[in-house]
């Protein structure tokens, strides 16, 4: 059995670790590319969302490179992601591919089914052993997410452009081979040290922006044109509404991102009073929380025809007005070009910078002493 999974950010690193522990051969698909998307689009239904098209492309390329078992997550709705495994199976069989498919349904669809599926993926292991494997593997994944969070926040402050990105890659590679709990602890310390020792200019004025939206597009750099790195290089410090382990884990506390589901729902309540599947509610809730935290702006990213985030997009203009925070939404599909996104993004960042400059100036009128310094910092932006 040579198992493969679709790409979604660092997901392949997590599975590489998990399957090394359970003793199953794992083949990560080739890195998502224009060809991946092209293959996916050829076999996908026309107005299914981008994640389906990209993951079908991943599966095809993985089958080409020797995988024979496709592992996909299931779901119980109402977002259509929960039905994607069925559709993938249907269209890939139609296209003539031969494979096995394992669908990991969430425990909400029944614990027995969940445990039975997990047991296939960890042959010969007891439930206790599996639980131990998941625990340690998950801890490692969480540390990787913490590293990413640090990178998003501090890339804007680096003195030499590109240092943080390089350090992040090095840090991930230090964590990757760590297996036991002690090794992980040690590797984590080393990894954070590498990131912390990147030279930073913490006095530099930076814009603070929140990123919200649909998880796949947020987590997979190919589909979001790696705008996080681009923004970081522009001098924008980022907060993001979802991290990989927050999305996978059954906990509603969201340890990495740091805001619990109930806080999100509470914040969103006046505007969206019920979950609508996917990230519809979190997109609204996070935007409000970010506005209250005083962030300069919010970027929403989601695939074209995504139902939950389309609802959020319809509601966000109200939030923007009421909380006086600029919001820009990017709707992404296979036709979207990087240049178009970057142009709009740059215009948005310019707008945020001039707003901030204006705000700072008004504030400075009250505090004469700061005036000159703030004016200079505004000009630097």
């Amino acid at each position, binding site marked *: 059995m040579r198992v493969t999974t679709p790409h979604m950010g660092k997901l392949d690193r997590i599975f590489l670790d998990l399957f090394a522990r359970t003793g199953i051969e794992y083949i990560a698909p080739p890195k998502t590319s224009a060809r991946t998307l092209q293959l996916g689009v050829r076999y996908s*239904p026309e107005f299914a969302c981008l994640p389906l098209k990209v993951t079908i492309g991943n599966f095809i390329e993985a089958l080409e490179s020797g995988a024979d078992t496709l592992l996909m997550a299931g779901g119980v709705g109402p977002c259509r992601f929960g039905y994607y495994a069925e559709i993938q199976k249907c269209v890939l069989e139609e296209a003539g591919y031969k494979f096995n498919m394992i669908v990991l349904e969430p425990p909400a669809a029944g614990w027995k089914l969940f445990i039975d599926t997990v047991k296939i993926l960890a042959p010969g292991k007891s439930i206790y052993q599996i639980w131990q494997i998941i625990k340690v593997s998950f801890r490692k994944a969480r540390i990787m997410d913490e590293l990413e969070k640090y990178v998003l926040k501090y890339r804007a402050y680096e003195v030499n452009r590109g240092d943080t990105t390089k350090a992040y890659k090095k840090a991930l590679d230090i964590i990757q081979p760590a297996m036991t709990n002690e090794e992980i602890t040690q590797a984590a310390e080393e990894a954070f040290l590498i990131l912390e020792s990147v030279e930073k200019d913490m006095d530099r004025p930076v814009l603070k922006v929140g990123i919200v939206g649909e998880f796949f597009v947020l987590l997979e750099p190919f589909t979001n044109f790696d705008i996080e790195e681009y923004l970081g290089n522009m001098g924008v410090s980022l907060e993001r509404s979802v991290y990989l382990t927050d999305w996978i884990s059954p906990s509603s506390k969201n340890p990495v991102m740091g805001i619990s589901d109930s806080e999100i729902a509470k914040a969103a309540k006046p505007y969206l*009073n*019920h979950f609508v599947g996917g990230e519809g509610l979190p997109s609204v809730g996070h935007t409000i929380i970010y506005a209250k935290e005083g962030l300069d702006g919010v970027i929403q990213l989601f695939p074209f025809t995504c139902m939950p985030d389309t609802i959020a997009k319809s509601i966000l203009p109200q939030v923007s007005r009421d909380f006086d925070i600029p919001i820009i939404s990017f709707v992404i599909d296979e036709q979207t070009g990087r240049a178009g996104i970057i142009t709009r993004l740059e215009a948005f960042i310019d707008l945020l910078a001039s707003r901030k400059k204006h705000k700072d100036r008004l504030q400075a009128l009250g505090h004469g002493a700061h005036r000159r310094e703030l004016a200079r910092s505004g000009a630097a932006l």
Partner: protein
Amino acid sequence: MSATVGIPQALLYYKYYPLWEGFLKGLGAEVVTSNVTTKRVVNAGTAVAENELCLPVKIFFGHLIELKDKVDALFVPRVISVEKDTYTCPKFLGLPDLARAVDVKLPKILDPYFNIRLGRRRYYEAIFDFGKLFTSSKYKIWRAWQSGVRAQRLYQKKLLSGLSPLDILSGIEDAPSKGNIKIGVAGHPYNVHDPYINLNLIKKLKSWGAQVFTEEMIPHKVLDREAGKLPKRLFWSYEKEVVGAAFHWMQTKSVDGIIYILSFACGQDSLIQVLLETKAKKQSDVPLMSLVIDEHSGEAGLVTRVEAFIDMLRWRSIS
């Protein structure tokens, strides 16, 4: 509270209007509905709606705008779940919030919850909570609900006999259509029965000598059983009905062909289309044609395709 309450003639209107009307009237409200969808409604709706929303939701906004000056409140229930372990469409889960976000001044929006997932007790509690807006008498609320339920039962009986929703609701009770070719029209009721959305497809089919069947004419038990034949059960109720109807027609071969109407950008329809087309191709002798519609659909294109489809069916039945 005695008030005029508006019910837009869109989305779930085609499914639950008698229930809602009976309930609201029983509570002492005066019920006003919007008229059939027109170009003006569509334009008003698309002007205020987010571009990526599906046409039926845009039209829903148009109907809200049509009603806004005529009523004290608008009835936009949050229909979350109508069956165990299923949801409706995500957009229905957020419909009252979407309506409030429309950039037009609307009257108060009444949004009772219908959520059977939380159990019968919570389901009825939500109904009583809503009824309290009108009257403090629990007995009166219960009576109002029951009169709605009775009206709904009668409505569903008439639907089963082959009458179309708009005919029943406007009091026309013609005998079901006769024709020399049988066409099953699958799709969400708000697409199948709104003549503006589907460019008057049903009437056209009838005028071309076709006898038209829709999902409402099939008992719910049969729909459920047929949809249950999918390898993984669907977690959306209304889509189960669409799939169930199409599978039923394919299974029994009771129609000569199936036309499946779907709206562009509909999340569920994008997947259901794959399921129906695969089944039609692999395991069925009943031809299926998908018609994707949005606000830019043109009549000429639709007529050409449907005529060709019917010609093909006629030719098949001769050979």
